[in-house]
Each structure stands twice: as C-alpha cells, then as structure tokens.
C-alpha cells in the first residue's frame, strides 16, 4: 500500500554535498589551500628545514642571503631561514584566527539567539548594544586592551573577539527569526514543547549552516587582523614567529632585501584567499539561499 522507499544509502547527504562541492573548481582550490595552511599550522615547526631558527637560533654569518636552493625565500637580518619562520608562524596565526572566530561565534550566537527568540524589549536592548559594539573600531579596542592588560597571545585573541561577535549576533538573530516561523517549529509548539526544547532542538540546529559559512569566510580576515596587531607590535612577542611580526621586521629592510617579506606575505595571501574560496564553496552547499 505504500510508495516504495526512496533508495538512499546512509551517507547520501554527505556524498551529495561532496558532489556539489566538487562541481566548483574554485572551492576545490580553496580547500587545497586551506588544507596546506592547516598542515603547516599543525606540523609547521616540525617540517621547517631549520628548526633551530624557529627556536630563536641565529646565524649571523648568513645574513640577508637572497633566495637560493638552501633558503628558498632567503634569510633575514639575523641569518634565519625566512621559510622556516613563516612555516612555524602558521601555528600562531591560524590558532589566533580560529580563536577569534570561535569566541566571536559563540558570543554572537548566544546574543543573537536570545534576542531573536525572546523578542520584545530583550531583543531591542541586545541589538542596540550590538550596534554600539559595532561602532568601536576593532583595532583600536585591541590596542587599548593590549595597553591595559599587556601584549600577548591570549589578550590579543580576547581583544579582537570582543569586536568580532556583533556580526554573528545579527546573523543568528535573523536566522532565528526566520527559523521560528517554520512549520516544524509550529508543529513542536502545537505538541506542547517548551521554549528551551524549541530553541535547542528545532531553531538553533537549523541555523548552524550559515554560522559555519560565516566562520569560514571570517577566518581569512581574522588571520589578517591578528597579523595586523603583530605588525604594529602588540601581538605575540618575539622570538615566537608570527606573520605580522615577520612582515613588520621585513619592512625596515625594504626594498633592498625584499625577499624577507615574500614568504609571510605569500602565506597570508594563501590563507586569506583559501578560507574565502572555501567559505564560498561551503555556502553553496550548506546555505544556497545566502548566495549573492
């Protein structure tokens, strides 16, 4: 008496997503670039050809050597291998970028979900507070926090995160407002489900895709911001290698020793471009409505 079940293997949803993802060459390029960046983030210090330079060792005999087979991106003012420093610097950049995006997403999701779901005055107050936070320039706030708490990895991540969450709050609020009008949410309400159950079982799980997409798109920019703080000298302290600090050092020796800026610049380009392409690809498969 029934229609035949749609024959579908268990992982069809995933396989279908992979299929759609592979349809786009740019997404695949982005995925490869991100994979490369993540590989260096985890194994960078180990894979680096001159691990002693990463640890702070110098080789003044080999200062400012141009690119050569031994040093593909040359050496810096202390004779350290630029490629090794850049590879090792991936860890800090990616970790900091991810920390910023994750903290921002968590705070933003909580604020946005409460505002969108409760509505009324709560919504009004939370969203005006969000707007207020948006008016504070992130970099200035970070500098202020660094001045108050001192520079360092944790303070830097915290400082950037505090200016990062409003985007997520607005996104999640919009998604929650849309999701709570879905028929399956009405169905749950008609059953008698309480607000907690509706929010956590029905509304939020259906807002996850756009959050993930935004996180991926934001990663590149967060890495850039972290590097920016390093560049102006309030990020990670040397000798821990970091892309922004490396670039900042290289600036003093431009244009004569241009290669000192090459590797960190290229690394940032790959990271930012890769995460953006990946984010676009993820949006196409997870959140097709969000495409502009």
């Amino acid at each position, binding site marked *: *008496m029934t*229609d*035949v079940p749609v024959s579908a293997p268990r992982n069809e949803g995933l*396989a279908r997503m992979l*299929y759609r993802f592979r349809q786009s060459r740019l997404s695949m390029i982005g995925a490869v670039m991100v994979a490369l960046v993540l590989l260096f983030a985890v194994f960078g210090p180990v894979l680096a050809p001159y691990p002693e330079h990463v640890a702070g060792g110098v080789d003044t005999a080999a200062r400012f050597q141009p690119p050569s087979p031994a040093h593909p991106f040359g050496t810096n003012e202390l004779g350290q291998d630029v490629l090794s420093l850049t590879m090792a610097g991936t860890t800090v950049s990616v970790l900091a970028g991810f920390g910023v995006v994750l903290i921002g997403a968590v705070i933003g999701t909580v604020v946005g979900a409460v505002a969108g779901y409760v509505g009324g005055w709560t919504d009004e107050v939370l969203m005006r507070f969000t707007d207020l936070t948006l008016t504070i320039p992130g970099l200035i706030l970070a500098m202020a926090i660094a001045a108050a708490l001192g520079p360092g990895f944790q303070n830097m991540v915290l400082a950037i995160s505090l200016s990062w969450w409003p985007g997520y709050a607005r996104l999640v609020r919009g998604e929650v407002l849309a999701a709570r009008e879905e028929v399956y949410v009405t169905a749950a309400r008609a059953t008698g489900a309480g607000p907690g159950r509706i929010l956590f079982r029905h509304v939020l799980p259906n807002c996850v895709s756009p959050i993930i997409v935004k996180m991926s798109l934001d990663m590149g920019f967060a890495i850039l911001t972290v590097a920016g703080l390093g560049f102006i000298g309030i990020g990670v302290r040397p000798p821990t290698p970091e892309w922004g600090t490396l670039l900042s050092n290289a600036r003093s020796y431009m244009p004569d020793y241009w290669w000192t800026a090459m590797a960190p610049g290229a690394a940032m380009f790959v990271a930012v471009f890769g995460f953006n392409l990946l984010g676009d690809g993820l949006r196409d498969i997870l959140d097709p409505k969000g495409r502009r």
Partner: protein
Amino acid sequence: MTAPLLEIRDLHLTMRSFHGEAHVLNGVELTVERGQIWGLVGESGCGKSLTGLSISRLVSTPPGRYPSGSIRLEGQELTALPPRAMQALRGKRIGMIFQDPTTNLNPTARIGTQLVDVALAAAAHDPRVLGRDRAPGPFARKAAARKVAVEMLARVGIPDPEARMLSYPHEFSGGMRQRVLIAMALIGRPELLIADEPTTALDVSVQAQILKLLKGMVSDHDIGVILITHNLGVVSETCTHVAVMYAGNVVERGPVGEVLGRPRHPYTRALMAAIPTRGTARGALKGLEGTVPDLVRPPPGCRFAPRCARATADCAAGLPAMRAAGAGHEVACLHPIEEPADA
C-alpha cells in the same frame, strides 16, 4: 495544408544530477492547433512542466541536454534558433503563465509600468502590437502602449483598469495578480500560450473565473493553449484535448471527452480512479501503488510496466508505439483497456 501551430516530435531531454544522467523527457510528441486547449496532465516528476519550459527554451543547459527532438512553431524549427531570436519569440509569439503569481511580478514597480514595458518590448519586434503598422515616435509609442495595457487589463476582467494601472502588485489579491500575469502574457498577442498550473495557488471560485477567461481568449483570438495541471477536473471543464504524461512520455492523448470518457491506458485509468467524485463511497478510492520510476535507470520498454497490473513480458521489450484508439484518440500501450470506465 498549413503546418500546425506547434509540433513537438520525439523530444528527448536529459538532466545531469548527482545520481547520473536522468532521462526526463523520453520522446515527447504533441501537436497543438489554433483554437485548441491541450491539458498536459500527470503526477509530479512526469515531465509536464519540463515539456512546457522546453518549448520556450527555458531549461538551462547544462544541467539539461537535448540529445534529439524537434519543436516547430508553424513549421519554424525552434531548437536551432539562436538565443536572441528565441528571446524575441518568447513574450511575442509564445506567452507563458506560471503557478505563483507573486514571484513573477516586480514588487517595486507599478502594474501599469510593468505592462507598458512588456508592450513596448513586444512592439520592438512587431509594431502591430500597438495597433500600428509602423513604429511612431517614442512619446506616441508610449501612449499607445499605455492604451494597449489598459485595454488588456479590462479584457482580463480587472475593474477600473485605468486606476489600477497605478497600483502596486501587493495591492492586488492572488487572483487579480494572476489576471495581471495573463494580461502580460497576452499583450504581445502570442499565438501559443503555455500556462503551468496557473490556478493551483488560487481559490476554486477564482480558479473558475481564470479558466473561463482563458477559454474566452482562445475563442476570441484563435490561439493555442497548453494548460499544464494535475487536476483532471480542470482539464475536463477547460480543455478541448488532453495528453497524459508518465515518466517523460505522452502515454495517451486525444479529445478530452474521448480520453476521459474512455481512458484506454492503465495509467490514465488509475489516475481517474484516484480522484474522489460524487459517488465514491468512503474507503473505496483507489490509490496508485508504487512511485514514478528512477529516471537515471528507467525500466526497459514501457516505463509504467512496473506499476501496471496488465503488464506482460513483452512490455519490457521496447517503448510501446502510439496507436489509434478512437476518433483522434491515441494510446501507447500494448494492452489497452477495452471496456468502458466503471463510472
């Protein structure tokens, strides 16, 4: 004898998908003459909408692909036409109406502006749309387009059309919007109108008015209409002819009284048995078992055979050919039902 208004021959269409290439149209054949309203019916996924979209070449390729087939409008082959020429044909010689009247109107522009734009665009290809043989100056042309738009609104039954020209789409009800879309489709004086579920989103009383309007247009302007619907009641009351589609094939076609009065194909019979009517006793309705086949790997031969109680081994041998089953009535079945419908 002149060429028919529309002649579709052996039209095949495949769609690339995750599962592989689906054969969604499998040799569709259809001939529409002026003055005829053809109902195109079948379950969802049978290819009726894709047939309509294929005529005006609105199927994107890729993922779509046309391995073979011919679509002729008064003898002119459309499948070989360059995109620009095809665009000129749409809205001019071929009009289209879709199911959802809200999404097909620009919410930020006045109804009048939208109609005048359509009239001017149509006049660019044929100045007679504005009631002249030759294109006049821009101001005269705009005034003429306005006049045509008001006339058309009046003709589709919109009260006080002069004032309504200034309204925005949201000020109209669903039925009124669908009338505006019909006016828009008719303004270029199409010879062929393709209406894809034009009344599905509307209330029955409004549906009755729209269908009456459609019938009036056919008799007044001697046009041909393809009405895509899943509602056999609508077909029975509106259409002159009907083509029943199943899994990308026309399986039965002919004059509406013939086909619905003496359905020969088991699928047509099953569709009719699934509709409750006046005398259907509670619980006596017959659903159709099974689902539309997987079009990536369609069953060999007759695509309805796996769901058909009359199927035999030879049904899998090849696609059954169309054969005569009455006055203008044809059926593609090796074992057509001879006895009359048990009504």
